[in-house]
């Protein structure tokens, strides 16, 4: 195995006068000075947010406007700091999505507890909760920092649905009952 001792040579006479180092240092700083700035004027300029960024968790709807969450409460269970509170509710029987049966009656995420870990998004079996681009949340009171269901849908918006699982299920059910 290669072990290399780090080299430490004694300073030369010139180096002991501080002068070469100071000049060398100045050269580096002046060279840096004429380069474009690395900093950013924050609120005016915003950094580019990469895909799959883990920002504020939000709830999303599918393209037909159905809330995707079926309040299975898996995210509530997995959330390490216990930031999520869900009250499950029923979907009205006359609704076109009645076959989904359940949707959250209340869904609160306490952003003072949330650590943006993304586990909720990872475990959700419905692709209903997403950590999206928003990264700065402020509020003047503790209550303001709790995102309720409406706010979560407002933040989340609509995301395309690859699977249309419930539409397929409905189609299959109708098809099945028509056959009888």
């Amino acid at each position: 195995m290669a072990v290399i001792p780090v080299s430490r040579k004694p300073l030369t006479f010139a180096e002991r006068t501080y002068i070469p180092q100071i000049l060398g240092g100045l050269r580096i700083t002046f060279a840096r000075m004429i380069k474009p700035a690395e900093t950013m004027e924050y609120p005016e300029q915003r950094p580019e947010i990469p895909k799959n960024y883990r920002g504020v968790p939000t709830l999303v709807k599918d393209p037909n406007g159905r809330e995707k969450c079926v309040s299975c409460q898996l995210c509530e269970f997995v959330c390490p700091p216990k930031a999520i509170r869900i009250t499950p509710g029923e979907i009205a029987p006359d609704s076109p999505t009645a076959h989904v049966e359940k949707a959250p009656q209340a869904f609160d995420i306490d952003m003072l507890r949330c650590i943006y870990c993304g586990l909720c998004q990872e475990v959700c079996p419905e692709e209903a909760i997403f950590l999206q681009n928003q990264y700065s949340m402020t509020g003047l009171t503790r209550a303001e920092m709790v995102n309720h269901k409406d706010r979560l849908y407002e933040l989340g918006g609509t995301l395309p649905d690859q699977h249309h699982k419930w539409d397929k299920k409905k189609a299959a059910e109708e098809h099945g009952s028509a056959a009888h």
Partner: protein
Amino acid sequence: MATDFAFPDTGAKSAAAVAAQEFQTEKMSLSMGPSHPSTHGVLRIQLELDGEIVTKADPVVGYLHRGDEKIAENMTYNQFVPYTDRLDYLAPLANNMAYAIAVERLAKLEVPARCQAIRVITAEMARISAHLLGLGAYGIDVGAWTVFLYAFTEREKLYKLFEELTGARFTTSYTRIGGVARDVPEGWTDRADAFCDQFLPILEQILNLLTRNKIFMDRTVDVGVISREDAIAYGLTGPNLRGSGVPLDLRKDKPYSGYEQYEFDVPVGAKGDCYDRYLVRGEEMRQSVRIIKQAIAKFPGGPWYATDAKKIFAPPKDKILTSMEELIQNFMLVTEGPQMPAGEVYFEAENPKGALGFYVVSKGGGVPWRLKIRAPSFCNLSILPKVCVGAMVSDVVSILGSLDFVMGECDR
């Protein structure tokens, strides 16, 4: 009636001292920290001073104690991953990896080559980022501002890469038991490679500002000397141990995650002073770049998580959405946790700060029965009472910076 008070006659006392021809001094006690810029967090050192000379130094730790070990007993193995971010919060990716490997050893689970390579690349990037911070902060401690700014510029570039890979800059929570949270995005390895290429000359520039600089050397050479024997006796690990000339590097001595495939050197110091520790960190960054470049050059394809570990790693998302079996599997995994056999395991990884160890005791099931964390910063700090004695107060700042500890891990 007048009352007589016996005022201590200070003048008389000093006159007596003068008569006895001795200079009267009293030892002074000084609390350095918990909020002192050079204690890098919330360390308090109870100093006893004789004038400017330290006669006793007593580190007081625990201000950042969050009970991580106890927390671990109350959640599944995967849920604890975000907590490992917050140990050595300057290198969360390396902590994630050490924890995941410890639990995988418990399950006797081998992860695929691609996953190993991803973990090595991220851990080495974390090492560079942690050493850059150590270097920059050390510069500030001993009076060199510019180094800090340049080091942080480079660190920002690394954070951009972390952000793209894991979704977060700081609290990455990237590994899962049996794999990683997600595969590397398209073109990410090329960008990591490009970072390495541009980083090397800049690293030389940054180090050039300090290495031969007499002002810096005056503050570090022959200050805080830790002898080889002391370094071993106090259980130091990482760059602090290697700075004292002991070539122990777990990546070489007990390779994990495929480190045996990569060629790299282990830098060691000769004297064990602050300057040596600084030099070792500088060289380690160059070696990390070497490892990253090798790992990227032969980046393996294939799966990035253990596909056969059905009771440990969650099934792919589109399967969860379309198939009943995987849906149930996902529910079981999340609610019960990754299923581990009963037993115990101890695993140490070479983290930027030293050997980070996880001792996991399992009684089976998805929750550890006991999880003990061996934090390198905690052990490294134990030598403070020894090295600080006889040093000047300003040297204590230099010694602390050179030990490069992080309190999140020390207090856990």
